């Protein structure tokens, strides 16, 4: 929203410039955070936090200020009453595509069985109709096997096996994906319900960027890596041509730190898991995935 040249973007910049990062250019020009605001563009309270208590306090303080200033209905400034969405930020969901929710989490290990595994993060995964078809069998027969095309697996690995459990990181570049494969096999058929098992691997290595985190001055001096096994169980309805369940897991070892993923104290190798589950096609589930190639989803 920070960069959108439409009413949403204008409104967001207007309130953000009254908030916790107003005018900030260093160490970064970010305006990310939580904001309580009136529709008139008058900011009530804001902060950048992830702790529930802090967020509750923000809401309480924002509401108290709102109640205090209430004297009649707040009005949306005319500037924001119509919205011609900035096409650069269009988030067209692919026709007949598929939405998965991704959850990522650290895993306990035999060398650290009491590891703190409470932190986790989410993203959405979009598949185009063609990518969805890559996971469906051509013949509805038990024993039918096939390989998911490497372009589809490589994109899944590059965008959705990134260590963002504690913070954020860039997608793996194509050249960083050293291995990405998924094989599928039909293991059972009951009427129109086809049970499919998936097996695969993913391996990524990104050389150190030398970038320095401006908040703690730590430098990226080591490779960032992952080495994952992929397993899955899909239930496909061959009559409705729809997946009823899409349970996919990529888990293995990760190492290294990205500039903003808060791993400087946990360089690894340590275990990590990425779990994927099917979501309904509802507006709130159509929040775009973090990593998108702008034209990818509407050229196909």
């Amino acid at each position, binding site marked *: *929203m*920070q960069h959108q040249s*439409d*009413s*949403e973007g204008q*409104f*967001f910049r207007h*309130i*953000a410039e009254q908030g916790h990062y107003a005018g900030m250019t260093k160490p970064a020009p970010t*305006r*990310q*955070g*939580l*904001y*309580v*605001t*009136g*529709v008139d563009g008058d900011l009530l309270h804001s902060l950048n936090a992830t702790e529930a208590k802090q967020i509750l306090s923000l809401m309480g303080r*924002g*509401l108290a200020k*709102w109640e205090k200033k209430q004297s009649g*209905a*707040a009005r*949306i400034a005319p500037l*924001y009453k119509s*919205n011609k969405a900035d096409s650069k930020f269009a988030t067209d969901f692919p026709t007949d595509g598929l939405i998965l929710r*991704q*959850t*990522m*989490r650290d*895993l*306990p*290990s*035999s060398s650290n*069985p*009491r590891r703190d*595994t409470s932190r*986790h*993060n*989410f*993203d*959405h995964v979009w598949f185009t109709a063609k990518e969805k078809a890559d996971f469906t069998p051509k013949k509805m027969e038990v024993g039918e096997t096939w390989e998911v095309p490497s372009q589809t697996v490589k994109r899944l690995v590059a965008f959705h096996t990134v260590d*963002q459990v504690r913070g*954020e990181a860039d997608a793996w570049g194509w050249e960083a994906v050293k291995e990405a494969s998924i094989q599928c096999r039909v293991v059972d058929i009951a009427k129109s319900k086809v049970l499919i098992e998936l097996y695969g691997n993913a391996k990524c290595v990104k050389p150190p960027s030398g970038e320095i985190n401006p908040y703690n001055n730590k430098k990226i001096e080591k490779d960032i890596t992952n080495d994952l*096994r992929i*397993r899955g*169980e899909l239930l496909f309805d061959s009559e409705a041509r729809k997946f009823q369940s899409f*349970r996919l*897991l990529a*888990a293995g070892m990760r190492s290294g730190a990205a500039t903003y993923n808060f791993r400087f104290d946990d360089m690894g190798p340590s*275990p990590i*898991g*990425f*779990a994927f589950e099917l979501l309904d096609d509802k507006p*709130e589930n*159509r*929040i*775009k*995935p*973090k990593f998108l190639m702008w034209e990818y989803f509407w050229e196909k």
Partner: protein
Amino acid sequence: MRFTILLAALAVLFGHTFAANAQSNSKVIKAFDAGFKTPDDFDTVYQFVLPSDDDTTWRQVPWIPSLWQGMQIAGKKNKPMFIWAMNGDPLGCV
């Protein structure tokens, strides 16, 4: 006396929770180390990664995915807005 009973009860409760967590972790470690090839091992690791219901009570909030749409609704209802604009968005990882 009551205080002691309460402490004892808490100790039992925490001991039980700790033992349950340790048991759950050791099951996950075993399944992970075996490559989560069997349906049971797959399920153990898969379920461990997914958030619990307690972790996701915020999903009960009817979030509005568009700021502009939220502004129109808040304007009509004369309510303030709570905007989540950061990495770790409750609806995704934008």
